[in-house]
């Protein structure tokens, strides 16, 4: 068998699986988003009608859709910088030559990343409990009043951000730590010879050297944050006052609770467009910042 034929045979199973279970469904979803596919169509496919952009226009007129978009954007815009800030802070600490037990700390800080989101979300529901939660108990020590974290419309999404930072910061911490370790020591030595202090070293050596990695990490983290679903499903069921209904939560409810699969597909594509737009914007902003 020639290598060229072998090549195709080796990739064929994977390509076929991706074609059947990914490419075709993506195309089908685009098509479905232009139909009124609902519970009647589920029973009999002849009930499907083409509605063009009808689902999208309908969404624009639905207050809950805007609410979901706003909630998701809040989660992204507040959660991503907090998460990456925490990752960078802990990576810098771990990178310090003064650290003892580095291996232990790295593992400990990373542990939440590998835990099951649905399970730790249940744990956090109780940690955030208004009466018996340990968070409020801790706050009472500091003389602060208890907060109904998941029951107060103003605090529900910030609470989910808190859980998400705790769960995720270790991931980027490990990546940024690898980036810090890859910065050549000569760069620091040269800057020190020029009389740079620790602050200047960080600003003029560490940040520029880490910039490409920070861009990549923030784009990937943003993409992940746009896909928030399990937290509101487990912790708040979208409440209170619909303040934790996210785009994917809306897609799930539309599609698999009310069986409006056409409308759900439209929601999914709106999410895709937002993710794409934000990634491009982020790359653009970073590039222009680098040139200025």
């Amino acid at each position, binding site marked *: 068998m020639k290598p060229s034929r*072998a090549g195709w045979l*080796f990739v064929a199973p994977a*390509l076929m699986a991706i074609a059947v279970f990914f490419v075709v469904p993506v195309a089908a979803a685009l098509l479905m988003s232009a139909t009124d596919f609902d519970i009647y169509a589920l029973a009999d496919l002849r009930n499907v009608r083409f509605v063009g952009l009808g689902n999208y226009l309908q969404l624009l007129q639905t207050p809950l859709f805007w609410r979901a978009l706003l909630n998701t954007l809040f989660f992204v815009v507040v959660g991503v910088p907090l998460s990456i800030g925490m990752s960078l802070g*802990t990576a810098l600490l771990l990178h310090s030559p003064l650290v003892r037990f580095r291996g232990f700390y790295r593992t400990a800080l990373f542990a939440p990343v590998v835990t099951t989101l649905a*399970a730790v979300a249940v744990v956090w529901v109780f940690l955030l409990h208004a009466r018996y939660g340990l968070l409020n108990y801790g706050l009472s020590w500091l003389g602060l009043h208890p907060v109904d974290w998941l029951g107060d419309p103003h605090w529900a999404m910030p609470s989910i951000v808190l859980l998400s930072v705790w769960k995720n910061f270790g991931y980027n911490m490990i990546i940024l730590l690898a980036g810090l370790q890859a910065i050549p020591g000569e760069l620091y030595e040269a800057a020190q010879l020029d009389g740079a202090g620790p602050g200047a070293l960080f600003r003029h050596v560490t940040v520029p050297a880490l910039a490409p990695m920070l861009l990549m990490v923030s784009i990937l983290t943003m993409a992940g944050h746009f896909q928030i679903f399990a937290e509101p499903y487990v912790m708040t069921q979208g409440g209170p006052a619909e303040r934790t209904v996210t785009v994917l939560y809306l897609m799930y409810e539309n599609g698999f609770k009310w069986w409006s699969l056409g409308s759900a597909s439209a929601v*999914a594509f709106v999410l895709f467009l937002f993710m794409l737009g934000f990634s491009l914007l982020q790359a653009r902003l970073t590039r222009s910042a680098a040139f200025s």
Partner: protein
Amino acid sequence: MRRPLASLFVNLALALTALLTLFPLAWMVCASLMAPGEASTYPPPMLPRSATLANYRLLFAEHGILRQVANSFVISLLATALSLLFNVSAGYAFAKLRFAGRERVFRLLLGALIIPAQVTMMPLFLMLKEMGLVNTYAGALVPWLASVLGIFMVRQYALTIPDELLEAARIDGAGELRIFTVVVLPLLKPIVVTLAVLTFLGSWNDFMWPLIVLTDHGVQTLPVALAVLSREHVQDLELMMAGAVITVLPVLLLFLALQRYYVQGMLMGSVKG
């Protein structure tokens, strides 16, 4: 004088962060050992008055959670096996076997990464419903067959295999399949382990797709069953914590055992080059 102070600050800051990070997990274990109702008192207790396994016994005896434990293990193991079967040979071929259209197909695959998987869920569900695969293991496994990221990781690793080694085997008259199984696979062992760990953890922790495709209690995985249970048993804190421990412990132990491979895969998956 400055150095001891800086050292104190760095180590103290890390110790505090680690304490806060591990706290929820430690509390989960402690609360799972408390008697029913014990945690819902004020002030909230940290340690159980007398540790009991009653909650675990209840989960297995009354709620039959062994079924979901088995579901989770079977689905994650099968997902891992399938993912290796599909991705390893493809990743190797994209790195080392020349064939027409290779670069273009590979670029297309990487391009597909920007499409979030949730877009496929509605048509995929209909497809599986037609095939009678809703509420089966097969339905839950479909998204794990082949993954672009998996292919990418194996390809990056396989690029380091020297061509001379493969040429020598070809001159000796070995067929491509034989070269792959005898020469290549042993060299790919580290990345195979990495991919296996990542896939196992990923499918174990997966939530949205299993929630959609596994609606019957009997076929559900642990995370889905736990989410359903927690909606019904909001007040049974200690019971829920036992369920959370059972769900989290296997992946946490697996990670601790194979940490090196996991971190390597993470860094490969994110540092694109």
